[in-house]
């Protein structure tokens, strides 16, 4: 998954699939707020920047969370009765 999302080859990056979505969503949203093309385009740029910024913040939070989870070593469960030594030494 990491190889696809953070690929070093910029053409091979899944983030490109977000570009048409951001463009279409921002243009249509802006078009429902204005009637003329110039204000629509201006508003669309603002909306697109807002969406990209919001996505970047969410990505940052997810990356930090995943790094913390990955670094935390898995503790063996101590309450497992099967792995506990017998109480009275040899049975």
């Amino acid at each position, binding site marked *: 998954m990491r190889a696809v999302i953070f690929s070093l080859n910029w053409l091979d990056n899944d983030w490109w699939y977000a570009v048409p979505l951001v463009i279409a969503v921002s243009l249509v949203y802006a078009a*429902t707020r204005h*009637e003329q093309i110039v204000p*629509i385009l201006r508003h669309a740029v603002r909306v697109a920047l807002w969406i990209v910024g919001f996505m970047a913040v969410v990505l940052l939070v997810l990356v930090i969370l995943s790094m913390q989870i990955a670094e935390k070593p898995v503790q063996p469960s101590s309450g497992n009765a099967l792995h506990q030594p017998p109480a009275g030494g040899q049975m």
Partner: protein
Amino acid sequence: MPEIPKQAESQQVVRLKDPEISAFLAWLIPGLGHLYQGRHAKAALYFLCIMGLFVCGVYLGGSSELGWGRVVYFSWQEGDKRLHYLCQIGIGLPALPALIQANRMHNNRPVLWNGFMAPPRPMNMPREAVNGDQPTAHRLHLELKRYFELGQVYTMIAGLLNILAIYDALSGPVTPAARKEEEKRTTSSADADSKAPPPTEGDQQKAQQPDVKP
């Protein structure tokens, strides 16, 4: 149906011709309602953005081998209740072939157009059945990989965006609360000015010009 003038930005009046008919046309084909109302620029913008997104999704969610548009289908069977279609149907006519295909599949009649927007074959359907050559949902996910999900998201968002376009055809541009207040103030001051002498022809021409900044 009477035309409803709506005061939009910069003093420009938007004539919403037959709002209900326009809303239906906007649902049928993105931008058609606006074209009917004479709002050509917005019609082109809506058509390009929404149809472009939908066509991209149909392309991503299919292949020449499996058939195109496999991500847009309707199914209401146990284990495959297709709620995604509720979003996709927002785009209107372009998503309607899925209903025809689902009906044919349900009635054991062969699906049309090389399986375009046809539902996948249920797992319990034998290969000898009428639509036994259709791929299962499992095979679609296996062969299309993440492009199935991407196509699904594209087509669903296109359908949802068209609902915004339908609202725009029905009621005109959404006016923010601040602008509404400003309009209210303008209207109240206009009422107060109504006692004043009527404006000259030159003043009326100035008021009609849209205030567009370069």
